[in-house]
């Protein structure tokens, strides 16, 4: 009985002691719960904030070109709505937000449920859009040519074709240029004519080879002289000089598939570069081929030595010696190359440039000349032809250029006859991306007749900003 009483008393005492502790514990638990809830809310808020910031950052990174880090603090751009400030400029934030939103899309109404998706869906196109940064730089240059006047010898004023073409969308050149990997870059120039497509150039340049070698593999314009290596749109004339047409394959020129290796020759005096090229051996237009192969071993060889020196900071001189050799078609009878004849070309080129740095966008002068000797083996005799041009182009205002050119050239397959020509040229650049040119050309052909023509040219480019020619 005493034990029972003692037990009851103990229980009561325990209960009395435990009662306030339980209340305190309940208070504590509520406080902890409140803190946890608070932390949860803060965590959710932080999660939301960082999620948003991460999405914005990802969108921003996806929009950047490769190899570029985002600039840290972009301030609002000055967007003054005046006639002088037509370019829309804004802070990057709105663009980022838009890009971020483009990353997801709502499930269409009615499509939810039945095990299907609900809420927001990822838009995979956004990631694909980001991958476009690896696309090459692309541009298209249009070259429209026209001619007025008479030319009884060359119905097409710009080629050896017999089809009279006084107006022609001569060429639309598409270029694709990009870095291939840490060791190389690639350049493609595809020429769309009115009737066909031609790969004008398409090559890979190895930029980091040991020994200072600059190596190209692919199809390219050969490093023979100056004019042969230039695309139409960087020529200072609407046409090409007679010596180029008669002896070096004209507009097509020496443009072939093969290898090119160039190396700088160290010396204390000047820039000296030697280039050696080996091509398949097919060059020049179908109407008058320069080199043609009949066997696999009929490759053509090109060698070029270039010396360059600054005279002052405003002027410089560029000299070159070129050599080319390949098989010609003089010995081909009924499709069989019986003669196995070759053509060898030797060339000297000189360019003088003057451009005062302080007014470099307003005034400049370029004087050019090339002399080319051709040694063409034929059944009748070795034809030793020679030709040259001398030209000068003066920039007299920011957008205006005037030039003259004097031409003379023997014919490669009949060196006793020759053609003479003179041209005056006026060029206007409405902007860096378009050009209008007029050229008066007088040509006295070996056949006797004289041609007086007014050539005109419109050039325009769209797309990536290319390098200025030098």
């Amino acid at each position, binding site marked *: 009985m005493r034990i029972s009483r003692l037990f009851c008393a103990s229980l009561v005492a325990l209960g009395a002691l435990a009662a306030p502790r339980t209340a305190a514990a309940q208070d504590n638990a509520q406080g902890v719960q409140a803190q946890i809830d608070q932390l949860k809310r803060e965590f959710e808020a932080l999660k939301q904030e960082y999620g948003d910031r991460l999405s914005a950052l990802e969108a921003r990174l996806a929009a950047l070109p490769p190899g570029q880090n985002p600039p840290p603090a*972009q301030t609002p751009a000055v967007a003054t709505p005046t006639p002088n400030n037509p370019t829309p400029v804004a802070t990057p934030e709105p663009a980022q937000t838009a890009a971020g939103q483009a990353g997801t899309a709502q499930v269409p109404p009615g499509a939810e449920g039945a095990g299907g998706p609900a809420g927001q869906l990822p838009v995979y196109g956004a990631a694909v859009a980001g991958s476009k940064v690896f696309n090459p730089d692309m541009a298209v240059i249009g070259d429209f040519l026209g001619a007025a006047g008479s030319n009884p010898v060359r119905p097409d004023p710009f080629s050896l074709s017999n089809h009279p073409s006084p107006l022609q969308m001569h060429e639309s050149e598409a270029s694709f240029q990009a870095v291939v990997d840490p060791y190389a870059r690639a350049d493609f120039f595809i020429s769309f004519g009115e009737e066909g497509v031609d790969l004008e150039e398409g090559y890979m340049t190895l930029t980091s080879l040991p020994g200072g*070698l600059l190596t190209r593999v692919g199809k390219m314009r050969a490093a023979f002289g100056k004019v042969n290596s230039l695309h139409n749109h960087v020529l200072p004339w609407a046409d090409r000089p007679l010596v180029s047409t008669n002896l070096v394959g004209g507009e097509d020129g020496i443009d072939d598939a093969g290898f090119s290796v160039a190396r700088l020759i160290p010396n204390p005096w000047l820039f000296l570069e030697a280039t050696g090229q080996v091509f398949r051996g097919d060059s020049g237009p179908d109407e008058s081929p320069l080199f043609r192969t009949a066997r696999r071993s009929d490759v053509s060889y090109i060698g070029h030595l270039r010396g360059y020196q600054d005279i002052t900071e405003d002027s410089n001189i560029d000299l070159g010696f070129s050599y080319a050799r390949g098989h010609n078609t003089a010995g081909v009878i009924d499709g069989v190359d019986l003669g196995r004849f070759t053509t060898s070309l030797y060339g000297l080129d000189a360019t003088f440039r003057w451009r005062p740095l302080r007014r470099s966008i307003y005034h400049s002068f370029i004087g050019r000349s090339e002399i080319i000797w051709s040694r063409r083996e034929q059944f009748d005799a070795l034809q030793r032809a020679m030709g040259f041009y001398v030209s000068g182009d003066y920039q007299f205002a920011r957008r205006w250029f005037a030039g003259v050119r004097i031409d003379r050239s023997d014919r490669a397959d009949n060196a006793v006859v020759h053609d003479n020509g003179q041209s005056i040229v006026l060029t206007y650049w409405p902007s860096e991306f378009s050009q209008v040119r007029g050229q008066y050309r007088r040509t006295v052909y070996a056949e006797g007749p004289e041609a007086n023509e007014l050539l005109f040219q419109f050039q325009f480019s769209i797309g990536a900003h290319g390098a200025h020619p030098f």
Partner: protein
Amino acid sequence: MWTNKVFMKRTFLLIALVALLVAPMPASAQGKLNVMATTEDLASIGREIGGDRISIDAIARGYQDPHFVEAKPSFILKLQRADLLIVVGRELEIGWLPPLITQSRNGKIQPGAEGYLDASLQAQILEIPSGQITRAMGDVHPLGNPHYWLDPENGKRIAKQIADKLSQLHPNDRAFFQQQLAAFSKKLDEAEKRWLAAMAPYKGMKMVTYHRSFPNFADRFGLDIVGYVEPRPGIPPTPQHTLDLINEMKRQNVKLVLVEPYFDLKTPNAIGRETGAKVLVMPPSVGGVKEVTDYFKLFDYDINLLVNAIKSIGTN
């Protein structure tokens, strides 16, 4: 006989080729980093950071238009020997630098390589176009205005990038480069206070510039550029645009026209005559005029020029 001739020719060519290949390449200076910068502004900041541990040179001169530099082969020789190439970026050099880099035969300075530094990556860039841009807007830079070095705050950011890059390329000199950076930043901070104080009374001063060369400068020193002599970037002034600009300047009472040293003064002078505005030839680059021989002197000169011009306008 013919076979012998061909054989001799080919042997000669082979010998010439071998001689070319074995000719020694120029060696870089022992110990010193060989740095090339595309402009004199970057070269000046690089010189402050690199001190005597580097040799540094610039391609474009400060008095020439940096958009139109000729890709001369003599620059290829300089780039061939470079350990580091610092570029302004934002497509300022797009018309002339890519062929130079390709022909340099120098793997170290190819874009993306360790020795290629785009100084714009940490800088504050203004006028980043948003939305559709076309060439109808002129020669716009799609990645923003590349004349960002004309803000001393960006000068510090450029300097930090250069110091980090030099430290990466020459880890043994890291402490030296960081010490140089600290000294340069301190000196620039002090100078900036002076320049800001000098310009403070003229905050909000309206002006016109020839090209969009000064947005960062105007932003830092509180100037208000209300128009440009060029109707569009890279497009020469047209009569109609010049007339519109004159009317706008009269309406807003604009009394200053800033012209970069490489632009023709004919149109700005005509605008000045019509509006009574003062035409200032203000260099945007180190080397733009003879007195501006480094990055500090560029701001000293430009701010002094501006303050004196504004005072004379006030006096008149």
